[in-house]
Each structure stands twice: as C-alpha cells, then as structure tokens.
C-alpha cells in the first residue's frame, strides 16, 4: 500500500526524495519503494525517517 503520508510529510519539509534519502542514510530507490508501498522499512529506518521529518511513527506508518 502506498505511503502517501510520508510523501506529504516530505513535501511539507520541502525535501526531495534524494535529500530525504541522504539525511536518513539510505538510497533514493529505497525512499521511492517505501512511498510506493513496495518495501516495508525496519523499525530503525522508520524511526530515522520520523526524526528527520519531525513527526511521530503513528503520523507516518500507522493506518488510521
């Protein structure tokens, strides 16, 4: 399932996929895969992404 929340949070911070990938320490293809729903990141990666985007895990990775 696509992760549109991640896309929105990234856009809110005016960050490109490449910038987010570099900040988090993964490849751009991994960020693309997470946003497309093709890859489920580990909890550590989820935490790193949340730290960079200054949001909680619930905000990005929990289905309401």
């Amino acid at each position, binding site marked *: 399932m696509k992760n549109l929340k991640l896309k929105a949070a990234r856009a809110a911070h005016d960050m*490109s*996929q*490449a910038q987010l990938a570099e900040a988090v*320490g*993964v*490849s*751009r*293809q*991994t960020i*693309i*895969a997470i946003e497309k729903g093709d*890859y489920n*990141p*580990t909890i550590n*990666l989820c935490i790193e992404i949340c730290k960079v985007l200054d949001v909680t895990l619930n905000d990005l990775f929990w289905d309401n």
Partner: protein
Amino acid sequence: MTFEIFVPWVVVLLIVVLLGLFFSILIRKNHRMHSEYDERQKLIRAKGKSVGFMVMLVYYAILALLILFDVRIPMYTDTMLLVGIMLGAGSAAIYYSLYDAYAGMNDNAKRLSIIAVAVGAFDFFVGLQNMMSDHFVDSHGMLSRGIVNTLLGGIVFILGMIMIVRNWKMKHEES
C-alpha cells in the same frame, strides 16, 4: 582435453582463484573500496543470491538428466561447467539490477551501467568472432569455447541495459 593441456589449465585456474581471494580480502580490509548497501538493497541481494544459486542448480540438474539419458551434449566439460557458474552469477546480478540493488549508495550507478554495456558488447563480439573462426562447431563436433565469452558478454550487456533503463526511469519519477 589432453593431460598436457589440463595440468597448466588447472594451474592457471588456481592462480586466478588465489589472486581473486587475495583481492577480495584486500577490499574487505579497505572500507573505502566497499560498496555500501542500505537495508532494502541487502535484502534484495540476499534474495538474488538464492535466485542465482537456484538457476545454477536447475542448469546442473538438467545437465545431469541429459547425461543420464545418454543425450549427446556438443560442449566440452569445462565449457559446460563454466556456463553453469556464469548463468548463476548472471541471474543474481540481473536480479539485483532489476530491483536497484546492484550499485551501492556510494557507487556511481550511471558510470557502472555504461561500463557494463561497453564491456558486455565488446566481450560479446570477441566471443562471436572466436566462434566464427572455429566455425561455431569445431572438428570434434563440439561447440566452440567462444560460447563462454559470448554468453558472458551478453549477460553483462543485458545487466548494463537494465541499469540504464532503471536509472532513466528513476530520473523521471517525482523527486
């Protein structure tokens, strides 16, 4: 293959394996030469290794069945064995590139893909030329050993093309 050719061939193979081991240890110790992969790429690469291994297993199983039923395979033994290894390694590499896990985060994917296409094409045509000079099938009715180069060149060329297409596709996706 006569014994006189076999012994130096084995010696050369041993030297190549030892050199390969030496350089792989050297690269392991020098972290700057490492390709760095993120968690997703490591997962894909682990899966790709299984895919490559399965392809190799299937190839050798088919070969074993053919030999069991006395089907004549017009290939020298060394060629048959090498083709299996190449198919396995090639399948793994192609799997990596299909899922953007071939080039590491610190690798220049564009440069790698161009090199792969160039080297693959060159190797393919050199192999083809070798085969044509042997008339594809030699005087013993066996497929020319140039098939090894041709196949390897083809695999590397396909790998390079997949990487180029994936890089182009990614460039045009939203950034």
